[in-house]
Every structure is written in C-alpha cells, then in structure tokens.
C-alpha cells in the first residue's frame, strides 16, 4: 500500500492522468517523489511505477540513468561541484577536496549533520564564473575557500527548499 500522503497521491495521479502519454511524466514524478522521500528510495521507485503503470524495473532503468535522480540517501543540500575542464583549469580539484574535507564526507557521502552531500558533476554551464558549484538549483561561482565557508555557513542558517531539481 502506498505510504504517500493522500493529497500528494491524488495530485500525482491527476498529473499522470492529465498527460497525453503518462510515461512522459516519469521524470517529473520522480522529482516530486525524490523531494518527498529525500531521495529516490526503493519505495519511491515502486510508488512511481504504480502511478505510471510501469514496472519498478522500468522506473529503475531511468532512475539509475540520470545523475539528478538520487537513488541513495543525500543531504538536504546536494552540492554539485563542477569538474568541467574550465573549472579544472581553475583548480576545481581543490574546491571538491576542500568541500569534502570541510564537511568530513567522501564523494557522494552525507555529512554527519545530514545537511550536505558533495557530488562531482558534469560541466554545469557556469564556466564564465569558474570554478563553480550548484546547490539545490542555485549557482555559486568564482569559488575560493573563504567564499565556500561563507556559503556553507549561510546555508546552514537559512535552509530553504526552493526548487524541485536540486
């Protein structure tokens, strides 16, 4: 049985029903469920499958394909650190390492307070502000250790869940 709140369940069912082809909603549904469960848990995969009349495997085929669908638990803030060649030129490695060291996590891990996950990421399209990172849909550029500290501090203080594609 579904463990989703009934209103969310209805909302999603309506969203699927409104689509010309239910399958085209699969990524949107995964984003919503990901937001609800914190990440795309096994349960979320099964929920999505039931909503879309797909098998869990069919959902899994997609969920594991995309890098913005998280099949493992993540922190409240997912920090995508750009490792594109331009950011690399500006010593991207040190941004990534600095973040990992600062938060005490390895790549993909969740910080002890459950707040942060650091992931390397494909070029984010913020090359004019290299080195850059993306946190819950917001870009941060021209990074250096001081700036990173300030950003983390700010995020810790004011948590806001602003966008669906984190």
């Amino acid at each position: 049985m579904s463990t989703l709140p009934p209103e969310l369940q209805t909302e999603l069912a309506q969203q699927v029903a409104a689509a010309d082809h239910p399958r085209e909603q699969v990524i949107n549904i995964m984003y919503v469920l990901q937001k609800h469960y914190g990440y795309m848990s096994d349960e979320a995969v099964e929920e999505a499958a039931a909503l879309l009349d797909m098998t869990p495997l069919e959902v899994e085929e997609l969920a594991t394909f995309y890098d913005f669908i998280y099949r493992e638990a993540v922190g409240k803030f997912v920090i995508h650190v750009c490792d594109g060649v331009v950011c690399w030129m500006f010593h991207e490695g040190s941004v990534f390492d600095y973040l990992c060291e600062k938060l005490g996590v390895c790549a993909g891990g969740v910080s002890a307070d459950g707040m942060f996950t650091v992931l390397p990421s494909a070029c984010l399209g913020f090359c004019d502000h290299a080195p850059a990172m993306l946190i819950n849909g917001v870009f941060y550029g021209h990074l250096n250790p001081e700036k990173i500290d300030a950003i983390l501090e700010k995020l810790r203080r004011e948590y806001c869940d602003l966008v669906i594609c984190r």
Partner: protein
Amino acid sequence: MPTLRIDQREISVPQGTKVIEAAEKLGIMIPRFCYHPALGSLGACRMCAVKFMEGPVKGVEMSCMVEAADGMVVSTTDPEAMEFRRYVIEWLMLNHPHDCPICDAGGQCLLQDETVSGGHGLRRYQGLKRTFEDQYLGEFVQHEMNRCIHCWRCRRFYQEFAGYFDYGAMQIGNRMYFGRFAPGPLESPFAGNIIDLCPTGVLTDKPSRYKGRRWDLQRGPSLCLHCSLGCNLVGSARYREMIRVEARFHGAVNGYFICDRGRYGFAYANHPDRPRQARVGEEAAPLDQALKTAAQRLGQIRERYGPGAVAAWGSTRSSLETLGMLQWLCQDQGWRGPQFFPQASLARRVKAAVARLDTGMAVSLRDLENADFIVVAGADPVQEAPMLALALRQAARRGATVAVIDPRPVFLPLEYEHLPVSPGDIDLCLNLLSQAARSEEAATGKLEPDAARFYGLLTSTNLEDPLLQERLLALGRKLQDCLRPVIVCNTDMVRETTPARAADQARLLQADKGQAGLFYLLPGPNAYGAALLAGREEVDLLAAMEQGGVKALVVVENDPLGSCPDQERLLRALDNLELLVGLDYLPSATAARSQIFLPTTTVFEKEFSHFINQEGRLQQAVPLHQGGTPIIQVGQGSHPPRTFLDAIPGGEPRPGAGILADLAAALSGEPAPPTAGDLWDYLSGEHEGFSQLASLTASALGEGVHLLPAEAQEPAWSPEPGEKPPEPPAGQLELLLVDQTFGTEELGSYAAPLQKVEEEPHLLLHTDLAADLGLAPGEQVALLLPGGEVTVRLQTAQNMAPGVAIMPRHRRLHWQKTGDGPVWLPPENIKKLSEPL
C-alpha cells in the same frame, strides 16, 4: 532486387535486406554480437564493421545497419575494417573475466569464437576490471554479470520481443547492468531464450550447470512434446543423461525460440524412478520374456473370451509409429480400440477440429504473426501453449488486434481485448463478432449461396452483459477493415460445438475477405495423428470395461489413472480386468498397477520418431543417444562402477512401436514383425490424411511435411449455427478443469526443474462470488465434486467470467473426481475449511 558484390562475389537480395544478411547468404559470416535475425539490427556492438568500397555508402560502416543497394562493393577483409573489429574485440575484453574454464558458456561462446578469430590475445589495458554483483534470477537462469559485453540481446528479447518488463538495463556507460529491480525469478515463461541469445556466459542454463561441455554432448534435432505446437529443439545428452534442450530454428513453427516448459520439461527422461526394467507381476523379467508372457496371456484371453475382450488404450503423446502400430495391432487382432483420448467428449472435439483443417484454412505460427485480427476462443495461450502467446505478441507488434474470448483471467504480454464469458457463450460471441464484422449492405451480397445461407441462420441473441456486448460489437466493427483475420480455437474446455463453430466463422470470414486462418490448439503433441487414426467411430473403453466385456487392457504410453476425470469409476472398471499390460517411460500410477510392464524409450532415445503438430505438420525427432540409466544415477554421484558389462545399464527399454510390432508378430505367429516401411504403407492406405506417408523421403522432413488435405473432410457449414448449447442449471457454477504453464502438463510434471517453479494447486473464483460465499483468497476450501471432496487453496480474480469455478489439473491435486463433460456445481459445494492443522 538489389545486386551487390561482397568479397568479389555477386549476389542479388530482396529489397530491404541488410548487408550482413546478404553476406550470410553467400556463406560469409560477418562477426556480430547485437544483431540477431529475430531481433533485427541495433548497431550497438559495432562488431560487424565492413568496408564499403563503392556504391551509395562509402567507408567503414556496420553491415547490419546498411541495406543492400545496387552497385555496392563490400569488403569484409579490408585492413581498416579488420583493425576496427580487432579493437572492438579488445574493448569488449577489457573487463571480461579470465574464467572460461569455470564458465558454462565455455565451448559455446560467441565471444570466445570472435576473440580467437579476431586474433586478440594480449591484454594491453592495464586498468582494473569492472565487476558487478549478480542477482538470483530464478531456477532457470544463472546470472554472472562480470562477463557482460552489453550487446542488449537479452533486454531486447525480454522487453521488446516477449513483452515482459521485469528485466532490463540499469545505470549508464560502462557501469550498465542487466538484471531485475530486485533479485527474484524472471516472470516471463520465455526467459530461457535469453540464455540462447546471450553471446557469452552472463546468462547460462542453471539446471545444466557444470554438467558437461558442448563438445562432449550428443546433440541432435528433436521435438518438443509439451503441447501441440510442435516446436523444434536441439537436445543434448551426455553419459546417458538428457542434459539440456535449446531452441532449433524453424521458419514456420517456433522461429528461433521456445518456451520454458519446452526447455526444461525434458527432465522426465532422467527421472530417477523411471521404469527401465520389464516386469511380470512383481518380478523383474527380461523384456523379451515379459513380451512373450504378455503375448501368451493376451492370446489366452482372446481364445477364452473372443478378440473383443482385449482392448488397447493409447495417448496423444506417443510417436506416430507407436500410435500406428497400436492401430495395426488392434485391427490385426480384432481388439477393441484403440482409444487415444482420456474422454470421449474430448475425442469428439479434437476430431471435429482436425476434420475442418485444410490447406486453405490452416495457418502456421508464423502466418499467425502476420495476421491483422486474431480471435482467441477458449484458450489461455500463456498457460496452454506458451509459444502461441509469443506469436500473438509479434502480431500485435505489427498492429494486429487480438481479442480473447475465454472465461479465465487471461494474461497476455501484449495489448489485447479480453472478453470473460463462460464456455457456453463462446459460440454466441463468435456469432456476434462475425455478424458485426459484416456491414449491413455487405451482409447479403457477395457471399456464395452456402455461406449466405449460413450467415442468414446466425441468430442475434445478445449477451447478458450489455458492456461485453458493446465491446464485442466494437471489435466486430474493427474486424470489418481487417484483411487477414485468424480464429484461434482450443479443444480443451470448450463446448463440443465450438471447434466446428470456429471453423464456420473462419470460413465465413474467408468467403467475405478472401483470406482467413484457422488455428486450433489440441491436447498433446500427437493429438492430430491420434484424431486421424481414431477415425469416425467412437470407442468408449471405460464403458466397455465397466460392462465386463473387456478382460485385458493394453495401455500404451498413457496414464488413464492420471488423466481420466472419473478415477473412482476407472478403478472399478480396472478391477474387472484379468490382465493389465502397460507400456511406458514414465513412472505413472498406471505403469505401477500393470501386471505386465514393458518399458519404452522417450523421444530422445534409440530410434527416429514422428509427430504431427496441431496444424497437421509431420515432423521428425532424431534420437540423441542410446538411452540407459544415466551414469550419474548409476554411480550415485561418484565415479561409475569399474565393472564391464555387455549391456548398457538400464538400456532395456525399446521404442513402443517396436515392442508392439513384436507383440503383433508373437500373437499372429508371423515370423517377422512389421517394419516401419510396412507401417507407413499400412497407414497411407488406412486414412487419406496419411496418403503422403508412402512417398515420404527423409529430406522432406527438414521443415516437416504438411499432411493437410486440399479440402477439409467436413467442409460443410454446421447445420444450426444459431443454436445455443444447453445452459447450466440456474444458480450453478460450471467447474472448468484447465491447464497451467507449469504443473499440469503430463510430461513436464515429471521434470524436476519445472516442479520447482509450478504454482500451488488452487481454485479460482470471481472476486464478487467469493465475497458472496464469504470466502477470502488464500483460504483452504473444500470442493465437493461428484466423485468426492477436494481440498484446495482459493484464489480470486476480477477479470474472469462470473459463473465459473476454475481449477487447474495440477499434478499435486487429486482432481480426478469430476466425470466426463461439463460439471455443474451448486455454489454451496464450495466450503470454507477451518484453518488446516
């Protein structure tokens, strides 16, 4: 017809042929992994690269992706293409483990072959090898993901070709993983085919793991006996044990694939309890001596009571040789019979079906794939003849409409329309469908007088359920625009009139559209042959035995105690006998009860045998080995005994036909038993359906020989098409005994691998009915049948006909308590049991 040159040789191929296929026609095997003739081109493995020297395409391209065109000059040995292919192999081998010696694909591995032939030997990549965790995929398929080369064949077959979606590709790039969402058995009954398709050892055959290498196996073309479709197999035996069965290509029947029942059902041939020793009374005896005793005692009974006191009972699973010889013996000796079917009503249905097939109407499975409208009447393809479901899916993929008229909760891996009506309403549904299929103005014109008269006779009684009626009429309207309709009809649980009705409607469609097909499902791999041999006369041995007229019964490769629906009555009748002679290769109840038992061989052993599938195609099975008790059983797992024997241990069984021929010779005092040639001559004289047998040559048997007459034996329209068969007594349920994919089919029910996957025995009721009766799914219920009580677990379903109760003839269920014909049950005969102790 484009003409092109491949490696300096010219060939013309039909438009649309891919270069890789054109090369294959020239005998040039371009290496490939992802391309498969049944699945088509994909272009993923890049192994089939060739160089196009001239023509519309230039340079190195994939031969599976380019259609042959005029003026093409292709080189498969060009250095650039060769170097690229060498690299492809090297890339594929980067992560492949170093485990050929412990891999079951070793020796039958496409990757091995291509690696060796491509000349790749030294590993230049120094990185770490990628590894994956494996999954449990059920009892048939072993998963070893490290070996994967990502050719996509398994997923393409599993999802696109077969229509099941619990196995697929996950992750991305070189981390891509083929498997299930969570470990568990593969849901598709066609899953075994991914073993044949896998070009390396990722998916291997679990039951035959570690049993032997391909080069040590005695292999040969054989046939599947687990339903009436007659799929072609390659069987493999080693050390007197049947090891494995794979699909064998047959263009008209099974294509490249078989179902899992056919793939793993063969294990009955290795059954540890298989009777391999002749027996007189309780005493084991040499076969010759037992045969002599049998002849002597049968002769005595004949002398004492007259020839009619001996009767013969065959089955639909014996070879045509055995069936024919039994017929000969009966005719020669004046015995009663033979009877081939467990019930007289079933015999009538099968005979009605077979009599209506001719070359103009019968369609093969492959023809079925090209139909554009298919009505399935009274059949549940996945449960009864799984390969039919696969053919239906291919038709649906090409745009066909598939409608299933069946009381069961039918599931098909395709888009289909299911009309759950009771068996009594199937005829009516067919009527309504063909009425709706003809528009008003066309209704009277165009038809020849006979057909028009038949059409006029169709009554237009409506179905009780208006919703169903509407869906049926909508389907009929769809049928109006279709050009190649086919009616698929079963002979198992339908009314006696239904096979004939299906033929009538198909004939009407043919008269209307100029083209229509008829496809029957029959009970057993040689039911067609049995129906032809049985002729028009009806034999009811059970009644004759009850009346005491029969004193001796010869049961040939049949288990009436397992298949006769009224076992109590049969047991009483058997008590009237003085002698029961059994011939079989299964450790059946009837074999155990026989006073004289003569062991026979399976289809895999000793001699050639022939079977006729449901579309009248005579096919040959080649013996793979000499038979005998498998060494693994003789040695009990350890090494075989170090004694030398003249005879093969357990090698006594002989083909049924041979034993019967010897029996005939012994009884008639002839010096030599009839030979196969004699038998063929006899059969071709006996029945016009067999007239082709006399001129049969071995070469004709590659694809099989269609024994169909040019005109059906019973081409006439049924006299009263509008008549509705008798209705069930009001308020009563009709009990339907049905088949399941695994667990009900006789041969397969003796196969250990299939026993592991069979469902529990159950009784299926409509959800609403069960609720009305206060029963919940999963509960144990007692079912009071005419012959006694059956205890079974209850299942419910919504999408089934309301007025029926469905019970599979499960091997683990003592269902033989029903009697012949439809069984009506008052609902109160289904009682809830307090939880079993």
